[in-house]
């Protein structure tokens, strides 16, 4: 009897050891996930659903109701939505154009492609400061240029423009900076997609009578839909999360990324900051779902035009 027990115990022990052995290589990943993602997320949710004014009971929707009635937040949500809706297609378009330009081989192509990556190598803060200096008031280069201080270009305005004085132009500057900095990423992704197309497909389309435009819309676009999807999904998320460009160039105007900082650092209310962050996550997930649907439609259209 005891030998049987021993055997059972030995087997159980063996199983346990196997189990542990199988799991331990995953341990760092699990620790990372729990430590840096799950705990943070749960803490964020708890923070956003608790109120500093009430009795501290969870859940409380007071933070949400307060920020939703805050005009600054509503404007920030509107501005950021606009920023994403305009910025994502702009980055995609710029990426498409530059990828198309760099697709064909020509002299110094690799050098020029490397030059296109420079914006990626600059810290975002530096890029933002460059834009700041360029569009400075009253003495930035753009103002000088428009005033006609750089002959032979004629002046088109009489007074320098204060670009950062209105929310529209200030956010436009942020958008320009953001798109300028991130276009190389979309360009690289689309270029990889273009390079994976068998050139014989285009030859075949050509020999069947397809013009350049028809080849582009009927062959190239459907075949780079996967690349386009990656660009659109990744870039739209980045657009929602944007902080540094609006912070430097449009610091005083409402924007979701900077609003979190404002609530946390200026008004000292981490609950409100957390609520904004949670809403931002909801926006990102919602955008992703909508984009999935749109890309799916596009894919279906490409297969059965």
């Amino acid at each position: 009897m005891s030998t049987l027990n021993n055997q059972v115990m030995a087997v159980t022990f063996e199983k346990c050891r196997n189990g542990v052995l199988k799991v331990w290589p995953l341990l760092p990943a699990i620790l990372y996930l729990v430590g840096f993602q799950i705990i943070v997320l749960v803490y964020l949710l708890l923070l956003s659903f608790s109120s500093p004014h009430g009795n501290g009971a969870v859940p409380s929707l007071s933070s949400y109701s307060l920020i939703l009635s805050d005009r600054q937040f509503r404007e920030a949500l509107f501005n950021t939505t606009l920023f994403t809706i305009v910025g994502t297609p702009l980055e995609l378009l710029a990426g498409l154009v530059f990828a198309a330009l760099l697709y064909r081989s020509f002299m110094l192509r690799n050098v020029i492609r490397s030059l296109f990556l420079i914006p990626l190598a600059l810290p975002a803060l530096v890029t933002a400061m460059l834009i700041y200096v360029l569009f400075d008031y009253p003495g930035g280069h753009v103002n000088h240029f428009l005033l006609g201080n750089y002959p032979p270009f004629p002046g088109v305005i009489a007074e320098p423009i204060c670009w950062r004085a209105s929310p529209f132009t200030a956010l436009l500057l942020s958008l320009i900076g953001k798109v300028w900095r991130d276009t190389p990423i979309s360009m690289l992704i689309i270029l990889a997609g273009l390079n994976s197309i068998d050139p014989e497909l285009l030859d075949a389309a050509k020999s069947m009578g397809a013009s350049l435009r028809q080849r582009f819309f009927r062959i190239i676009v459907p075949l780079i839909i996967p690349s386009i999807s990656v660009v659109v999904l990744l870039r739209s998320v980045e657009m929602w999360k944007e902080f540094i460009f609006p912070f430097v160039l449009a610091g005083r105007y409402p924007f979701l990324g900077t609003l979190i900082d404002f609530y946390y650092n200026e008004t000292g209310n981490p609950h409100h900051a957390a609520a904004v962050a949670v809403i931002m996550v909801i926006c990102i997930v919602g955008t992703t779902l909508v984009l999935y649907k749109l890309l799916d439609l596009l894919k279906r259209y490409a297969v059965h035009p």
Partner: protein
Amino acid sequence: MADVVLKSLTKKYGNHVVVDHLNLAIKEGEFVTLLGPSGCGKTTLLRMIAGLEKVDGGEIVIGGKRYTALPAQKRNLAMVFQSYALFPHMSIRNNIIFGLRLKRIAPIKIEQKLTWIVNMLHLKGLEDRLPKQVSGGQRQRVALARALVLDPDVLLLDEPLSNLDAALRETAIEELKNIHRKVGKTIIYVTHNQIEAMTMSERIALLNNGIIEQYETPKQLYDHPATMFTAEFIGSPPMNFFTGEISIEGRTAGVKTSIGFLRLNKDRSRRIISMAGRKVTVGIRPHNIYYVEHVAQRRYTDANIELVIELVENMGDRSLIVGKSSGGTLVRFMVTREEEFLPGRTMHVFIDGRSLHLFDPLLKLNIFGQDGTI
């Protein structure tokens, strides 16, 4: 349907001349194969005709119309690519009607054409599948259907069978021949496979280093190779070559070689009798060297050669034997007998004097010209 004329066509990549002042005339409705080893310029030539490669010199005239500078999409040609180049995101149906749609043909007419081609190429029931969901042979037929449905003046085929297995290739060859008979299109076919070329084409243009070595019917190419390159390239296993000297023995002329004196048949013997002493290269196809047991069966012109068997390669119905003559020259020949041939054994073979090909060793040309041999 149209005839094709290439005049002094040239293509260069940098300093490297790929197609060199090439002239070629293809008759209306003819099936012509551009045959040659890899890198001979045959695919480049086909792509030039299709308009996919820039022409660096010369002219392309199809159906009396100058095509040289016409962009590919304006030429009424259709091409089947080696990789088939089916559009992976389109169903078989959309692949086939892609070109018709671009031409803005009425939908009813498109449907009619689709039905016609789908029936002819046995693609019924596959229309809604994607290219990756059908087999290699079916993909090849879709590529062919896609080209044929456009009703092109000339059909260009770039090694369309090279990705098929041997059995499928046989069927595809039959099918292509049938299609050519049915639709009667001018077909230009590119291949490095001489069996495809020999079985399908009406004429073969044998290419080598961007020039045409010989442009003839398959039979003529095989029986009367005009150049040594043709003689070497056409025929499998390849021809034997021996260097020798024209000399006279008895009353007939022949060639003295390291394997012995090879006597020519009477007719041609008379033509070379004045060339005695001239150095030549003799070519003999392996199947023109016979193993005959009974001496009585051989003709007067047959040269008798003693060989030691070096290697026996079983090819099924026949065997290829490599034998070594007393002078150390290797001779390849075929035997059909079921008797066992073992390396090391000595055997006597006879060479038919009518099947000798004589080439000038420097010019590499057939000394009898193209009307040469038999």
